[in-house]
């Protein structure tokens, strides 16, 4: 059975136009249509309830406390009974004729079948050239960046095997934004069959687009969240490398300065040496970097912090009378 999830928000006008098309295409396929509505102010859920009289295979979920396309799709998938799960928009921009092809592809190969705008035969329809270029550029970048094996990971029109969804579902965080396919693709096991079917975007049947800056912000946030998740192992490795590397580097310096901790007399003489350098040469303590301490002398780097361009130099200071000489002096 095919379970088709249609997430809606203010689509009361579109739904009565879309459902007959779906019923026509899926007439000989066992199916259910699940409308998940985010408590639309235009009463989409009420309209859908009314349509149940005409379409008995229609299930309506009205969400009052939650919003967002991705989470609506997941809610629909969880309520679905079919072995193939599919998603499409309610606005009629997705070609219903492809539902059968997506269903059959998933039935035959398992995995995920994506209706793609960016493979030969597909397209963005009547989009402005600038919008197409922008969308294609972002899609290409995301695909490369996340090493995805489909050409349109941000398509909202796809079908997937139920058992695959059940495997991924526990690892799904609370999803935000509207690129649910992208979120799923980032979590599919290696070797999952992925197929693409070309399609061309068509204009809306009714209603208004929900593509806003807020939606794009949510996508940006989910992209960052996924990036962090995907590179978490690398972050852990980097943390360990930093911890070990810095420990080694700092241990060498700490060893060179160990007498400051273990020998109170050397500590006191060092403190006096700093005061003496300040009194006799006028050097600022903040410009002196202690590199090495032994019972007879200190090794310091004199590195002025200012805009004078004075070169830093290494000096050694005798701890008996606080006289100093350059490190390279014989």
């Amino acid at each position, binding site marked *: 059975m095919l379970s088709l999830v249609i997430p809606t928000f203010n689509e009361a006008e579109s739904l009565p136009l879309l459902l007959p098309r779906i019923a026509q295409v899926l007439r000989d396929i066992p199916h259910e249509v699940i409308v998940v509505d985010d408590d639309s102010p235009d009463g989409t859920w009420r309209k859908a309830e009314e349509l149940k009289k005409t379409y008995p295979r229609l299930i309506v979920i009205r969400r009052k406390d939650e919003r967002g396309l991705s989470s609506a799709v997941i809610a629909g998938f969880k309520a679905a009974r079919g072995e193939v799960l599919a998603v499409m928009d309610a606005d009629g921009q997705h070609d219903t004729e492809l539902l059968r092809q997506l269903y059959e592809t998933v039935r035959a190969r398992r995995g995920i079948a994506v209706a793609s705008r960016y493979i030969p035969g597909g397209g963005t329809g009547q989009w402005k050239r600038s919008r197409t270029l922008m969308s294609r550029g972002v899609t290409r970048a995301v695909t490369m960046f996340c090493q995805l094996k489909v050409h349109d990971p941000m398509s909202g029109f796809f079908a997937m095997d139920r058992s695959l969804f059940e495997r991924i579902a526990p690892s799904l*965080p*609370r999803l935000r934004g509207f690129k649910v396919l992208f979120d799923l693709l980032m979590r599919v096991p290696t070797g999952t069959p992925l197929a693409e079917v070309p399609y061309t975007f068509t204009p809306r049947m009714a209603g208004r687009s929900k593509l*806003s*800056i*807020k939606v794009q*912000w949510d996508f940006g946030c989910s992209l960052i969240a996924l990036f*962090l*998740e995907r*590179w*978490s*192992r*690398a*972050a*852990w*490795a*980097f*943390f*360990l490398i*930093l*911890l070990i590397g*810095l*420990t080694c580097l*700092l*241990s060498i*310096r*700490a060893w060179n*300065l160990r007498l*400051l*901790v273990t020998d109170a007399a050397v500590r006191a003489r*060092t403190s006096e040496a700093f005061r003496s350098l*300040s*009194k*006799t*040469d*006028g*050097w*600022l*303590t*903040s410009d002196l*970097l*202690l590199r090495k301490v032994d019972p007879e002398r200190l090794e310091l780097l004199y590195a*002025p*912090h*200012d*805009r*004078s*361009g*004075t070169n830093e130099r290494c000096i050694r200071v005798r701890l008996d009378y606080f006289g100093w000489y350059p490190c390279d002096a014989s």
Partner: protein
Amino acid sequence: MRRFVSPFFGLILLALVLVVLQNFAGLSTDEAKFLLNIPYPHPPLLRWLMGLTFWMPGQALFWRVVFATALLQAAWIVMALLPEKKRSEREILGWLWVLSASVLILSGQILMAPVAALQALVFCWLLLRGENLEAHVGWIALLWLASLFTAYQALLFLPIVVSVFWRLRLSAWQRLLCIVGPVALLALYSLTNPLAIASMIAASGQNAHAGTLFDAVREVTGLWMLGGSVVMSVLGVIGMLAARRWPLILSFLLTAVFILVSYRPYYCILFTPLLLAGVASAPLLLKRSRLIIISTILSALILVPLGYRMVVPPFAQQIVDRAIEAGVPKGATMMIAGSFGHEWQYVSPYLVRRFIPEKISDARVLVCLADCPEVREKKAWKRLAGVQVEVWVRPIR
């Protein structure tokens, strides 16, 4: 869309206004210290990054804008402390952050305390999140390491960090590595930088001799009030106690004790993320939203002018400009008699040294912040007229 875009640009605008005010107040010695990457009192991460931009014209202004923007835009993280709540309640929380006197006073100042507060805010966010964070353990560990290597004050938030790592399903050694590893590394770093330890000891002793315990407690109370603009100060403590958020309570107490022994006015911001997380822990406190916002605005209006830092007179810059005009070449030595701050090093194209009468022949500029009679007898030296302090130059002819 407007609900999202307007606050975003509104906060940027507010950040720019506060930057202008801070820029007008001038460069403090602490700010100069960080911009110059002076190797104390804090660990090196952020000051090293700032030091990399030393060549940049307008370096201070750049970092003021970065710090102010980051501090104010953190309102979005604040709103994320209550993901399950209505937008209106989350917005109140955001307003409490933005209207906190500490945030308004410190936005645009180049200090480590606001950065430590931001890092603490992220840890509070992780503490209050109900989701599993196992997938992000590497990032959280890196954040903890980075926080400690930005400012020692990150240690004040150790109870929160421990609680965050404790909640994760990690093996015992992983947990130990994540929590103790960075702290041990910081201790090792401190051993390699005796100046940092010396400056910390000096700073901690400062308040111990400042007055009575009562005075010190009064100062801490004052900073607590600034940290939450009174309203959040009270609600935050009630919230963390009511919700029994022990990590927050412990961090709050640690911060209070730290300020008690080592008072600095800008430490008020260390309270702010804790108080905010306290309010978020008991969101019922946000019910009377209008009253909360109005009283917070009123408190901020009174507290912000009181807590705003004094204008630093641009002495150093004026004197350096005059010395250049008088023909002292860049790269020459400038000696300063008396006590002076790092801003002299920051603005000066000269090698800055303390005044040593015997070494006067090395210098070409002498600034007498204390009495320096030795120079008055020297014929080659000329006194600069029209500057607020006694300045002598020995230009090259």
